[in-house]
């Protein structure tokens, strides 16, 4: 069976010369939930944009990134975007429609579904994120937590098999974080979550990958990596408190 995500020696340099990725290699199996850790500027977001074919601007036929066995090249870009749902870091970037229901319906509309099916998907997606009846609300009048959840509903409405999330719990209050984590846990898709929320990594992800300076510096079971204090400190992270209070017996 082919991997859900397969990245081989991926390199990327921004126009201003910043080398964001310097040869990243990683593999995520179907159904896995993997945390992508690393300090600010380590290349996490850049890597995630590649998984949806949003970078590089000129698609190269080199097949450094494969999703569900398909290389990301221009010919199957549409197919890839249909199967990979990407949750952006800033909800205001993602919610570009005037009302919630229009925004959630955006993806299904692009898929060319009929109106009844679109409506059913919108209702279902809003229920899944715990916002039933929010359809008519204006997107710019929602709280940050609600915006996040509407973003997720917009992604879920496309029924992706791979979910890629960029710091899904940043800027959320503790309750919002807890609820969002519970929500993510219920989604059966393969998940790759870039995050600074180490508790989220411990609770949701069995495996973690640490990225720093555009390179994968560690890859293994989440608890083992997070428990390795020298490794964590070297790469701008820390051993989370929940591990400090855990007893080996």
């Amino acid at each position: 069976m082919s991997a859900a995500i397969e990245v081989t020696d991926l390199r990327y340099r921004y126009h201003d010369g910043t080398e964001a990725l310097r040869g990243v290699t990683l593999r995520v199996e179907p159904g896995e939930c993997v945390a992508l850790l690393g300090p600010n500027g380590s290349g996490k977001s850049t890597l995630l944009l590649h998984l949806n074919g949003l970078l590089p601007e000129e698609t190269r036929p080199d097949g450094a990134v494969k999703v569900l066995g398909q290389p990301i090249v221009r010919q199957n870009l549409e197919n890839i975007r249909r199967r990979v749902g990407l949750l952006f870091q800033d909800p205001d970037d993602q919610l570009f429609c005037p009302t919630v229901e229009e925004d959630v319906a955006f993806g299904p509309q692009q898929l060319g579904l009929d109106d009844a099916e679109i409506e059913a998907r919108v209702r279902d997606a809003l229920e899944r994120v715990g916002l039933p009846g929010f359809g008519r609300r204006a997107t710019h009048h929602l709280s940050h937590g609600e915006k996040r959840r509407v973003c997720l509903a917009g992604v879920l409405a496309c029924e992706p098999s791979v979910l890629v999330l960029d710091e899904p719990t940043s800027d959320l209050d503790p309750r919002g974080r807890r609820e969002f984590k519970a929500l993510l846990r219920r989604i059966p898709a393969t998940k790759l979550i870039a995050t600074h929320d180490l508790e989220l990594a411990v609770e949701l992800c069995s495996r973690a990958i640490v990225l720093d300076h555009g390179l994968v510096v560690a890859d293994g079971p989440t608890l083992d990596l997070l428990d390795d204090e020298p490794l964590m400190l070297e790469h701008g992270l820390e051993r989370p408190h929940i591990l400090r209070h855990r007893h080996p017996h």
Partner: protein
Amino acid sequence: MQNAEMAHAAASGQALPFCILHSAFCLMSALDHHHGGVASPVHRMPAALKLAMALGIIVGTVTVPWHFRGWFVGVAVVLALAAVLSRISPLFLLKRLLLLSPFVLGVALVNAFQPAAQGSWLVVAVRSGLCLLTVILVSNTTPFSKLLRVLTRLRVPGLLITTIALLHRYLFVLVDEAERMRRARLSRTFTRRRRARWQALATVVGQLFVRASERAERIYDAMCARGWK
């Protein structure tokens, strides 16, 4: 609240450039709707009907010759009736009208001082006042998304509708962003020198432009990620 903030800014001797910037943003945020939760007969009217009536009133008011006074009186009565039925406070309508009228009043004023056009300033003021009131009433009793849906049904090109929808959506984000930048600037502004403040304003405006264009790129990415073609 915004007005109070503005008055406070003026009273504390805040420099003119920031007052201008701030009023511009107040004007923009004033474009936000006022129909939260109200369900008057005017709010419930179909958006298409309201839009058609508004268009009729505006075209008529602009083109009907001035000596057909009956038209102008009629329009004024209809608008007054709509205003009462919509349960929007008259003070709110008056404020909006004043907010939008400086341009028109400017033209009327120029006319008033031209010897050849005796009394035409009144004509300009009445015509534009009625048109503005029509627009204010329609936009404050109809959610923006409904207006867009009417335009879609009228076969207005999709690209234009998308552009208008995005403009409306991100105006508020931009206003918030500018407001945050203004506050951040103010918290570190210690000089009373006017020149320095104008320079600071230029930086804020430039920075806002850069941020807006970068956000536009991220939005485009987000649209592509959900299958935009």
